[in-house]
C-alpha cells in the first residue's frame, strides 16, 4: 500500500520535481541563468514550437496525429513573405492569408482522414511533402527578401511591414523594461485557450471521448467526423500562427522544411503525457513539456555543451517521459484494477 502511494506520487509529480531540480542545478552552475531575462529567453525559444505542440495536442486528443505542422509553419513563413514582399499586401492581409491557409490545410487533412479514410499518419505525411514542395513553387526555390529579382526582371519592392515585424520583435514592459516578447504572450494565450477548450468545455470532453473510444462517442450522438476535422483545423491554424511569428522574427521568407519544428513540438506534446501522470495528451502538459526542453537547452548552451549533446538530451527526456507514461502509469492502472476489480 505504501509502495502504491509512493508510485502514485512519483507518477503525478515526478516530472515537475525533475523540472525543479533542473532549474536549481542550472541556477547554481550557469551564471546568469536565474534571471528574469533568462526566463523570458527560455519562453521565447520555446514559444514557436510550443504553439505548434499545442496544435498537435488537439490531434493527439482525438487519437490522430499531424505530421504536417512543421511544413504548415514554414509555408506560412513563405506565404507571409510572399504576400508582403511580392504582392505588397499589408500586415493584416498577410496574417489573415496565413491563418486561412492553416485552416484550409487542416480541413483537407481532416477530410482526407474522415471522408477518404486515409490513416492519419499517411494523410498528414502526404500533406507535409506536398507543402514542402508547394512553398518553393512561387519563387522557383528562392528565399524571399526585399529587393530580390522577380521572374519579370524587376526587383521586389514590398517590405515586411513594421506592424508585422512587431509580432516577432516587440517586447512588452513587465516589471522590467522591454521584457516579454509578443511570441511569448501569444504562446501563453494559446496555451490557456487550448487548455480551457480541452479541459473545461463539453467539446473538449467529447474530443477526449472520441480519442479514447470513437465508437462509444459516436453512439452517444457526438459528431465524430466533425470533431476530428476541427482538431486538424486547430492544428493547422496554430501551426500557421507559429509560422507567422517565425517570419516576424526572421524578417524574411526562408526556404525550410520545418522538420525540426515538427520533431521538437511532437516531443513536447509527448513529454506532456507524463506531466501530472495524465498519461494522455493535454495542454498543460504540452506547455510544461515545451518549457522542459527549453530550459534544458538554454542551460546546456550556457554551459557550452556542443549541439549534438542537445539532440541526445532531448531524446533522453523523451524516452524517460514515455517510460513514465506507459510503464509506470500502466502499473498504477494494473494495481488499481486488482485491488478494486471485484466480480
Amino acid at each position: 500500500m505504501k509502495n502504491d502511494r509512493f508510485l502514485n506520487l512519483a507518477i503525478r509529480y515526478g516530472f515537475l520535481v525533475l523540472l525543479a531540480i533542473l532549474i536549481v542545478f542550472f541556477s547554481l552552475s550557469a551564471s546568469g541563468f536565474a534571471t528574469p531575462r533568462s526566463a523570458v529567453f527560455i519562453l521565447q525559444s520555446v514559444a514557436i514550437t510550443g504553439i505548434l505542440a499545442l496544435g498537435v495536442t488537439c490531434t493527439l486528443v482525438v487519437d490522430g496525429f499531424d505530421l504536417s505542422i512543421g511544413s504548415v509553419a514554414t509555408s506560412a513563413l513563405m506565404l507571409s513573405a510572399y504576400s508582403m514582399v511580392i504582392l505588397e499586401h499589408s500586415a493584416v492581409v498577410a496574417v489573415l492569408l496565413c491563418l486561412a491557409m492553416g485552416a484550409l490545410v487542416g480541413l483537407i487533412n481532416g477530410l482526407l482522414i474522415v471522408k477518404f479514410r486515409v490513416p492519419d499518419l499517411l494523410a498528414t505525411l502526404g500533406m507535409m511533402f506536398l507543402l514542402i514542395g508547394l512553398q518553393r513553387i512561387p519563387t522557383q526555390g528562392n528565399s524571399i527578401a526585399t529587393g530580390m529579382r522577380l521572374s519579370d526582371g524587376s526587383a521586389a519592392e514590398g517590405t515586411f511591414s513594421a506592424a508585422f515585424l512587431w509580432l516577432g520583435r516587440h517586447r512588452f514592459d513587465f516589471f522590467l523594461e522591454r521584457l516579454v516578447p509578443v511570441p511569448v504572450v501569444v504562446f501563453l494565450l494559446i496555451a490557456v485557450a487550448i487548455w480551457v477548450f480541452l479541459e473545461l468545455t463539453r467539446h473538449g470532453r467529447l474530443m477526449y471521448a472520441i480519442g479514447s473510444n470513437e465508437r462509444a462517442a459516436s453512439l452517444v450522438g457526438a459528431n465524430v467526423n466533425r470533431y476530428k476535422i476541427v482538431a486538424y483545423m486547430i492544428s493547422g491554424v496554430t501551426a500557421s500562427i507559429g509560422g507567422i511569428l517565425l517570419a516576424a522574427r526572421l524578417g524574411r521568407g526562408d526556404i525550410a522544411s520545418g522538420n525540426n519544428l515538427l520533431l521538437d513540438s511532437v516531443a513536447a506534446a509527448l513529454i506532456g503525457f507524463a506531466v501530472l501522470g495524465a498519461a494522455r495528451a493535454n495542454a498543460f502538459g504540452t506547455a510544461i513539456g515545451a518549457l522542459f526542453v527549453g530550459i534544458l537547452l538554454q542551460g546546456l548552451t550556457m554551459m557550452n555543451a556542443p549541439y549534438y549533446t542537445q539532440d541526445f538530451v532531448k531524446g533522453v527526456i523523451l524516452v524517460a517521459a514515455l517510460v513514465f507514461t506507459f510503464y509506470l502509469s500502466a502499473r498504477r492502472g494494473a494495481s488499481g484494477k486488482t485491488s478494486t476489480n471485484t466480480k
Partner: protein
Amino acid sequence: MRKLVCQLQGINKSFGQNHVLRGVDFSLFAGEIVVLMGANGAGKSTLVKLICGYHTLDDGSMALDGEPYQPADPASAIAAGVVTVHQSINDGVIPDLDISTNLMLDQLTKPRAGLWVRDGRLRKDAQAVAQSMGITTDVRTRVADLGVADRQMIAIARAMARAPKVLILDEPTSSLSAAEAERLFSLLDTLRQQGVAILYISHRMSDVRRVADRIVCMRDGAISGVFADQPLDYDGAVTAMLGHSIQETGIELASAGKPVLALKELCIEPDSTPIDFTANEGEIVAITGLLGSGKSRLADILFGIKPPGAGEMFLDNQPYQPNTCAQAVEAGVFMSPKDRSSNAVVPEFSIANNMSLPFLNMFCRWGILSSRLQKSASDQMIDELGIVCQSANDDINTLSGGNQQKVIVGRWLLKPCRVLLLDEPFQGVDIGARRDIGRRIRETSDNRATIVFVSETDEALEIADRILVLHESRVVGEHVNQQINMDALVEQVSGAQVTPSVATSS
C-alpha cells in the same frame, strides 16, 4: 467405467478479497461431453482459465491422466494436451493469413521448424486436417473473407490438429447461426467417438439439450448440481444454475399506455419480410432471437445507425427517420449499445464523465463544464443503480463488468426520453447487477416505451411485459409475459417452428 482423464479436487481461487472458486471438485472422462452451466459471474470462466493455464490455483489439486497437472502458462497446458477454444473467435485466428497457414500455425512455431515455408506441403497437411473436420472451403482462402462460423470451425480445427486429450469450448455457439451450430455439433459427435474429453461451456438450453452427456452447474463459485442420469433433468439444471426456477421471476404486467413508437411495413433487410410493431408508453418489450435474427440490425435502424430496408417509422405519430445517432437522441430515442467495452465505455474517463457523456450540455455553465454538476448527477445515479465504487470520480476501469454496465445504462436514464433501446444490457453482467439494472429499468419505465434486445430467453422473461421473437429478420412469435408456453418460445427462437403466420401464445 470410462477412463478418467482430468480430475480437479478442492479448488479454491481468490482475486484480492473476492473468493471466486470455493472448493470445486470436478472430473472429466474420455469420450464424454460435459456441459458446464452457470450464470455470469458464477465462476466458470475462472475455472476454465485455471485448467488452461491462465491462472494458477490458490488451493486444491489438478490431475491429468493420473499425473499431477500444474500448468505454468497456456503453452504448457497445450503441451500437456489441454486445448481451449475461447469465446472471442478472433483471438483464435489470424485474419490476414489463409486457412492453411492458420491451421498449420503450430507447425510454424515449433522450435525445430525449418526456415522455409513449403507452401505446397503446408497446404496438403492443412487439406487433410480440414477434411477430417468437414471443412470444404479452399484452404487458400483468406480467413478474413470467411464468415463467423467458418472462422470458429477453423479455430476448433486448429485445436484438434494438436490431438488434445481435453478440449474446452467456451460458448462456441454464441456467434453461430442454428445451421452453423449444427455443423459444430456433428463435429463434436465425431470427437466424442474418438475419445476426447470435452468440456462445453454454455447456458444456451438448445445447445445443452443437443450435446450434453452430463451437466455440471455452478453458482456463486461452487458446484450447485451435477446431472448425469438419462434422461437429463434440464429444468433441474436451470434451477441449480439460477438458484430458482426460470418461471419464478414473476413480472407484474404494466398497463400499456398510448403508442409511442410504431413500425409500419418495416423491412430490416432490403429483401426481408416487412414487420409491423408498436411499442407503447409504460411498456417494456423484449425482442429476442439468435445471432443473425436481425435484432441487432433492428436496434441500429431505430437508433439511426443503419437505414431500414424499406418501410416507415413513427414516433408519437410523427414520421421518424433518423440518419445519425445525434438525430435519434435529439428526437428522444436513446440506445445503450451492446458490447459495452467497444461501443460504450470510454476507458480513460471517470464514472462521472462516462455517465454524463451524452448530455454534457446539461452540465455546462457559460460553455464551461461544471464537474460539480456532473458529479452530483452521477452520485444520484450511483445510488439508484447501486453501483459499487468509492466515488463518481473513480476510473471506469476500476469497476467490475456489472458495475460498468450499470454506468452505461445509467447514462441514458439521466434524462427522460420517449424510447429507450437497450441492446444486450445483460451481456457480461453478473446476476446481482442484472437484477439491479432490470429493477431500475422497470421502475423508471412509466413515461416512455422501452425495448430490450436480448439473445437469452431467460433475460427476456426477467424484464419484459411482452416478448417478440425474431428469426431471419421477421417476427415469428409474440408472447405476453405471463404463463408463457416455453416450448413454443424456444422453438421459435431456434427457428425450429418456422410458419408463415405469426405464432402467438398468452
